[in-house]
C-alpha cells in the first residue's frame, strides 16, 4: 500500500477545508501484463495508429507517479488521428476480466482541421474482482474541428479508476466531452482543457452516481486564453449510502481572453444522510471583458416533486429513480448511440436499486 497525494487544485485554499488534494492508499499492481480484451469498432487504418505515442508531460494530471506509470509501463497505447468527417462512432471497448486485471492506457486523439468525429471509450468489468485502471487521454482539436468524446466508466465497486485528461482547442474548434462516471471503489479524474484558440469551445458534461462506499474526486480545470473562447461545465450527480464526492472545478480567465465566457454548474442530489458532497467551484479572472458564472447546489430530492410522482402510483424508490433520471436527462441527450444509451440507463436503474 502506498499513500498517494492526488488531484491538487490549481490554487490552494485553507488546509482545514480538506479539498486541496486527495490522499489515497493504493495497491499498485505487482505485475503488468498485456491487456488483451479490447474491442475497437469503426475505425479505418487511416484514422488509427497504435503503439506510437509521443512522450509528453501533462500540465496538471492526477499525480507524477501515476503519470510516469503510464509513460513507462502502459500496456495499451492508442493514437487516433481523424482526417475527415466521420459519421460512425469510433468505439474503444475495454473489458476487465480474470486475464486482464490491469489496464494502463495512453490514448491520444487528434482531430485535424475541418474534421468531425465521435469517439466512445468504455471501461467495464466482467466479474467482481479488484481491477486497476490508470489512463491518460489527450485530445487535440485543431482548427474548425468538431470532436465529441464520450467516456463511460462502468467498473465494479472493488476497482480503482484513475484518469487524467488533457485537451487543447485551436481556433474555432469545438470539443465536447461527456463523462459517465459510475464505477470504481475510487474514481479519480483530472480534466484539463487549454482553450488557446480564438472562438474555441469546450463543453464538458458529467454525470456520476455513487453508492456504498464509493469515492469520486473530480478536478476539472478550464483555462481560457483565446478571444471569445468558451467553456461550459455541467456536472449532475447523485450519492446514496455512504458514498462521497469531491468536486473541484476551476474556470480560469487568462489575460488576453477578451470576450470569453465560462459557465460551471454542479448539482448533487443526496439520497442518504450518510452521503457527503464537498465542492469547490472556482472562478479565477485576470481579464476584464469576460463573463463568468458558477452555481452549485446540494440537497435531497424535492419533497413536492416526490409527492407528486408518488401520487401517480410510483413507489418511493421508483419515484427517486425517476427524479434522478430527470436530472441526468439533459446530459444523456448527448448520447446519440442508442445501444450505449440503453446500457447507461440500465446501469442507472441497477445502481439505484
Amino acid at each position: 500500500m502506498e499513500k498517494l497525494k492526488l488531484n491538487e487544485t490549481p490554487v490552494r485554499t485553507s488546509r482545514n477545508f480538506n479539498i486541496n488534494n486527495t490522499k489515497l492508499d493504493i495497491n499498485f499492481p505487482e505485475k503488468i501484463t498485456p491487456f488483451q480484451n479490447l474491442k475497437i469498432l469503426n475505425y479505418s487504418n487511416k484514422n488509427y495508429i497504435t503503439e506510437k505515442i509521443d512522450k509528453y508531460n501533462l500540465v496538471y494530471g492526477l499525480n507524477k507517479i501515476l503519470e510516469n506509470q503510464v509513460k513507462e509501463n502502459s500496456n495499451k497505447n492508442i493514437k487516433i488521428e481523424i482526417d475527415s468527417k466521420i459519421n460512425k462512432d469510433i468505439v474503444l471497448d475495454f473489458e476487465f476480466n480474470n486475464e486482464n486485471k490491469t489496464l494502463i492506457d495512453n490514448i491520444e486523439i487528434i482531430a485535424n482541421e475541418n474534421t468531425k468525429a465521435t469517439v466512445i471509450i468504455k471501461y467495464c468489468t466482467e466479474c467482481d474482482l479488484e481491477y486497476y485502471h490508470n489512463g491518460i487521454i489527450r485530445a487535440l482539436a485543431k482548427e474548425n474541428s468538431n470532436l465529441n468524446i464520450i467516456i463511460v466508466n462502468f467498473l465494479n465497486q472493488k476497482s480503482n479508476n484513475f484518469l487524467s485528461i488533457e485537451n487543447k482547442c485551436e481556433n474555432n474548434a469545438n470539443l465536447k466531452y461527456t463523462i459517465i462516471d459510475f464505477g470504481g471503489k475510487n474514481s479519480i479524474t483530472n480534466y484539463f482543457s487549454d482553450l488557446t484558440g480564438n472562438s474555441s469551445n469546450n463543453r464538458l458534461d458529467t454525470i456520476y452516481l455513487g453508492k456504498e462506499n464509493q469515492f469520486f474526486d473530480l478536478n476539472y480545470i478550464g483555462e481560457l486564453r483565446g478571444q471569445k473562447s468558451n467553456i461550459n461545465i455541467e456536472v449532475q450527480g447523485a450519492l446514496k449510502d455512504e458514498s462521497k464526492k469531491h468536486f473541484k472545478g476551476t474556470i480560469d480567465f487568462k489575460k488576453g481572453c477578451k470576450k470569453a465566457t465560462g459557465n460551471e454548474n454542479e448539482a448533487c442530489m443526496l439520497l442518504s444522510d450518510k452521503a457527503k458532497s464537498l465542492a469547490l467551484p472556482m472562478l479565477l479572472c485576470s481579464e476584464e471583458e469576460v463573463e463568468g458564472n458558477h452555481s452549485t447546489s446540494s440537497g435531497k430530492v424535492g419533497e413536492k416533486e416526490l409527492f407528486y410522482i408518488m401520487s401517480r402510483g410510483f413507489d418511493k424508490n421508483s419515484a427517486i429513480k425517476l427524479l434522478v433520471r430527470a436530472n441526468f436527462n439533459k446530459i444523456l441527450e448527448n448520447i446519440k448511440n442508442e445501444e450505449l444509451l440503453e446500457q447507461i440507463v440500465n446501469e442507472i436503474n441497477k445502481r439505484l436499486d
Partner: protein
Amino acid sequence: MSKTNIDEINRNIYDIKNKDEYDFKIKKGLTPEIIEEISKQKNDPDWMREFRLKALEVYNKLELPTWGPDLSELNMDEIATYVKPKSKLNDSWDDVPEDIKNTFDKLGIPEAEKTSLAGVGAQYDSEVVYHSIKEDLIKQGVIYTDMETAVREYPDLVKEHFMKCVPVYDHKFVALHGAVWSGGSFVYVPKGVKVDIPLQSYFRLNSPESGQFEHTLIIVDEGASLHFIEGCSAPKYNKVNLHAGCVELYVKDNSYLRYSTIENWSKNMLNLNTKKAIVGKNAQVDWVSGSFGSKISMLYPMSILNGEGAKTEFTGISFAGKGQNLDNGFKVVHNNINTSSVVNAKSISKNGGKCTYRSLVRINENAKNSKSSVSCESLMLDDFSISDTIPVNDIRTDEVEFSHEAKIGKIGDKTIFYLMSRGLSEEDAKAMIVRGFAYPISKELPVEYAVEMNNLINLELEGAIG
C-alpha cells in the same frame, strides 16, 4: 447635518500622521523576554502572563499558511508589537491629548458619539484612550469597557470566554495575537436587554513599523440584542504595519448581534484578522463588512451555528486597488437542526488590485433541515486587475437546501452610454454603477457610514478611470 460634514471627508484625513510620540514602545521582535515586558507594562494577572507565553510557544510551532497571499515581506523582527500612547484611558474627550483628540475629531468619532451612538471606544496604537457608555445602559447592567479593565474587573467572565471561541492554535496569527494582544473592547449585554443604539469602537494605528492587536470580546446574553460597529484606519508609511486583532462573539440563545465593520487601513498594512461568533439556539449574528484599505487582507469572519435554529447573515464588499491583495470571505459551520445562513459577497477590482473571495460552508451530519444560500458577485474595472472566487461547500447530510452562485463581469458599455445620455460624465456613470453595486452592503450600514463608504468608493475610483 452630520451628512454634509462627512461628504467633505477626503483621503487626507485618514492619512494624517501624528508624530510618533509614545509613552513606551517595546523593542522590535518576538521573544519570551519581550512578551514578559509587555505583560509587565500592562500589569497582567499571572494567568494572563502565562497565557501569553504559552501562545508564543504555539506561534513558534505553527507554520505560515500554505495558501493565499504571499506574506514573506512580514518580518516580525521589524515590528514593535506594543506601543503605549502618551495618554491614559479617559472618559472625557477633553482629557485626551490634543493631537490624538484631533485625529479622532477629524475621523468624526466624537460627533457621531453625540448624534448616533450609545457608547464609544477609541484606541490609539496599543491602548484604548477613550471609553464611554450612556448612563441608562449602565443602569441596565450593560458593560462596555476596554479589555484591560475587563480583565481586572470581570475576571470570571473574561476567563470563561477569552480565546475560547478562537483558540490560539487556530492559526499562526491568532497565536501571535494571544501573545501580544493589547486594547480592544469588552461588551456584556445582560439577559433580555435590548441595546437599540449602536456601540462603536474605533482603532487607529499611528506608529510606524508596529502592530495593533486589539481584542474584542462581546457576550450578548439570552434574549438580548446589540449592534456593534468597528472602524479602523491608519496613515500610510513606507514599511509594513501589522494588524492581527481578534474578535470573539458569544451570541447566546434567542439573542441578536449585528457586527458592522468599515475597514480602511492604509496601504502598507497587513490585515490578518480573526473574527468568530458562536451562535446559540434561535439566536442570530449578522456581519456587515466593508474592506477598502490594507496592502494584504486575510479576513474570514466565521459563524458557528451551535444552537437549534441559529441563523447568520454575511453581507460584505471588498474593493481592491493598486498594490492591494484583499483575500476576504466568510466561513459558516452548521452544527444543529434548522440552522440557516445567507451570504451576499461582492468585490471590485481595479488598477491592478486583486480580490479573492474565499469561503467555507459546512453543513454537518447533525444539521438536518438546514439552509444555506451564497451569492458572490465580482466586478472587474480594467483588464489588469484580478478577481478570484474560491468557495468550499462541504455538505455532509441530505436534508439540506444548499445553493451557491457566483459571477464575474465588467460594467457594460451600453450601461455607461445610457447614463451618459442622461448627462452623467463617464466617471460619474461608473461611480454611480459601482455605488449601486455596493448598495446592498451600504444599505446595511448606519447612514453616516454608508455615506462614508460611498465617499471611499469615489476616492477609490479616482485614478481608476483614465
